[in-house]
């Protein structure tokens, strides 16, 4: 799941300043799950913006809100085309993808991000999310016992641990586990410690061109008219 957190009210208010009618658009998938832009957060932000306006008296926006099922597919966005037609700007509480999807679909409409899209991760417990995947496009989890050194090691090194490991923790923070100690322990449990003996050559980041595209459809060229 994509994890994000809502931007500060100040930043949001600054972005929308020039626009009178603003539609706040929530997203019913990842942003709902990570508590950043689901229906509840949309209505909370809506109330907060109205309240801010009432308190400061410095603006005259009119707000509306709607939460779509998923912002990263144009078909879902089309369902609110009429609502978008009635406003001067869209404040999207979708992740960065959602913001761009709306912008792409409505070329003349200013679209602003209401959240900072942060990482791909999972819930640790209620209200706590941890990063787990960097989306590097070259998954090596098979070699590292299902623990990703790219995201979970501060340095992202492929042949760890480094000298900064101490009692299983990272030198960056004593609360942070050393990913390579975790990998070692788990390989040990799986009786695959031999994998620790191997040398993994440095990754060739040039081999990962951006923007990436995955094509499963026949007859579409990689990279064609992307972006």
């Amino acid at each position, binding site marked *: 799941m994509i994890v994000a957190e809502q931007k500060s009210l100040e930043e949001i208010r600054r972005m929308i300043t020039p626009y009178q009618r603003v539609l706040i658009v929530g997203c019913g998938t990842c942003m709902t799950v990570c508590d950043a832009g*689901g229906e509840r*957060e949309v209505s909370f932000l809506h109330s907060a913006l109205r309240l801010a306006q009432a308190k400061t008296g410095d603006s005259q926006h009119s707000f509306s809100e709607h939460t779509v099922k998923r912002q990263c597919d144009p078909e879902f966005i089309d369902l609110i085309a009429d609502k978008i037609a009635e406003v001067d700007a869209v404040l999207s509480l979708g992740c960065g993808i959602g913001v761009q999807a709306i912008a792409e679909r409505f070329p003349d409409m200013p679209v602003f991000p209401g959240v900072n899209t942060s990482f791909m991760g999972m819930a640790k417990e*209620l209200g706590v999310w941890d990063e787990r995947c960097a989306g590097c496009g070259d998954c090596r989890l098979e070699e590292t016992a299902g623990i990703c050194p790219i995201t979970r090691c501060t340095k992202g090194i492929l042949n760890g641990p480094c000298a900064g490991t101490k009692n299983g923790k990272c030198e960056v923070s004593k609360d942070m586990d050393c990913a390579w100690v975790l990998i070692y322990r788990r390989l040990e449990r799986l009786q695959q410690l031999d994998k620790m003996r191997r040398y993994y050559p440095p990754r060739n980041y040039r081999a990962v061109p951006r923007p990436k595209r995955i094509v499963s459809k026949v007859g579409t060229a990689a990279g064609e008219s992307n972006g």
Partner: protein
Amino acid sequence: MYSPTLDNTQRYRGDKTSASSPDHSLIPPCQVACPLHMDIREYVDLAAQGRIMEALQVIREGNPFPSICAYVCTHACESSCRRGQVDEPVAIRALKRFAVEFGGDRMVRAEAETTQVEKVAIVGSGPAGMACAYYLRKLGYPVTIFEAQSEIGGMLRVGIPQYRLPREVLDTEAQRLTQMGIEIRTSTRVVSLDLLFEMSYKAIFITIGAHQSLRLGIEGEDLPGVIDGATFLREVNLGLKPTLGKRVAVVGGGNVAIDAARTALRLGTQKVSILYRRSRAEMPADPSEIEQALEEGIEILFLAAPVRIERRKGKLSVTCIKMELGEPDSRGRRQPVPIKDSEFNTEVEALITAIGQAPQAPQDFRLRIGRGSTIQVDPVTLTTNRPGVFAGGDAVTGPATVTEALAAGRLAASRIDDYLRHRYPLAGKDTHRVLEGELSAETVEMIRKIGRLEPPVLSREVRTSDFKPIELAYDWATAVNEARRCLRCGVGAEITSQDRCASCLTCLRVCPYHVPRLDASGTIQIPIDQCLACGICVAECPAKVIVLRKPYERRHIAEELNHALRSAAEAKLKPFIVGFCCQYGLFGTGTLAALWREAKAGIWIVPVLCIAKVEADHILRAFELGAEGVFIAGCGTQCARENTAASIRQRVAKVKKTLAQIGVEPERIQAFVLEAEQDPGKELDEFIAQVGKLYLASTLMEEVRR
């Protein structure tokens, strides 16, 4: 069986079930068990909020004579109460008594108009007859009650002792019937139904009760000094004082036996013994009655039965035999078997037999009689073999409870109405499902255990000297706390749209009872038989797809907030502060009002049914509409849940963070968790002073700016 005929389908609080706001609540086990299917959950909930008059209103909707049931109901509801799976059932009957005593039942005037011409005769004025008369009169029929005794009430009058049902209560209800325009003809024994038809009654309801005591069938039963329980109680209840002597034995194990024994004690008998042929476990009398009888010093000889009575020197010599329990009979009760050569003698001055009663319909009524001398009726139409003649109550069922009789009377009224209006009787339609299933062990474990609070009773010494009612009403605080123990079965959370549910698992993680779960397909389910309607998931669900099953609960806070703000617009006191206060218990018992009165600022209380239901949005809205400060006050150890405040503190922190960005000081919001013995005024004063300072500072700033 729950049969929703003529039930309180009209829901209280104006909950009009509509497509946009459907009421998906399930019928709780207490309501199913109640013969009258009263909306118990609703009135207990209102009692828990201290809204006694409204509680009484709900009670009166489902029960024509709540003051009577408040004393003598055998409360089947309590036996099926699911709180019993946690600790002990909610004391529903005692709560009803509280609502009746404090809700102003005496002021209620029953009124009715005559809109129909067909006269209806009711033969017998027991609870079934009274209820039937009440409802027929409400339907507009001219009704006459015929009663053989000098006063109305049937078994309520001549069977139940005064210490269990004060006669003023019965008299009040009788007066109400007269007020409604029901003709009551006492000391009038009906000997012929034909005569009634000749008197132009179009329908007759026979509810003559079961007053004929069953005979022991042993030698000496007709000796002087031997009296049957029904006759004995009737004589005492109609003002006679039979001489019993110093020692009395009562034969039987039902409520009549216990009533007779306790009545004998109150007439001055020194030693009263009950002979019962089975053991205590099989005793059909109400366990609390047995307990009270034992407390009063009545001796119960279990596994003993009389076999012969002889009269010697003015006393009765009763030969008894000891029993042991043998094989269970068809009803599952173990049959007593005499033990050979175990006879023993006991000497008493009087023997009261109370081994059961049967109806005795006069032969001239020409009614078909069935098993146990009961009148046979069609179970749906309640008609007898004679056209226009209906029957109900003990006369049809054999001895049963007051509530069952009331239910029978109510049903009869509806059937007689059907008959007179030439309608085929149709069962009422209630779309509400019945809640089934027990609480799981895991849910039970998570529920805070709170023992049942009993109403006070007169001490043994005081109560046995006369016939004063022995149970007193609850005091206000105890009643409210007892009512709070209700688990509110069947009104829990539901997911309105699985489609919009993001399966984020927030509900699963916030539920204090671990109720939501994932089914095999990975869909979140909130089992209604486990949910206790705390509302935490409703306030937390990021997709806002969870609601409580009663529409009222959904709109409640928003409506109350709007109401408070509308009223506040006219208020002049500053600073204007909105307080979301728990309406249950602590604040429902008048503390709320006290807060209000002593308020040194413009405090407007938004009563909430537990602060766990206050959403972050509600707090923002209060500020948006002009509040200078907001506080949230809930209960500490009094709360039905552990740590309710944790979830609201979380929301308050979030709101504070947002408000800080707009320049609203975090000191303007505070959450209080108060204990019963604590004075909420002090902390509140500090908060008001705090907000007052901020208010002053901001108004000064405003002046400067100008």
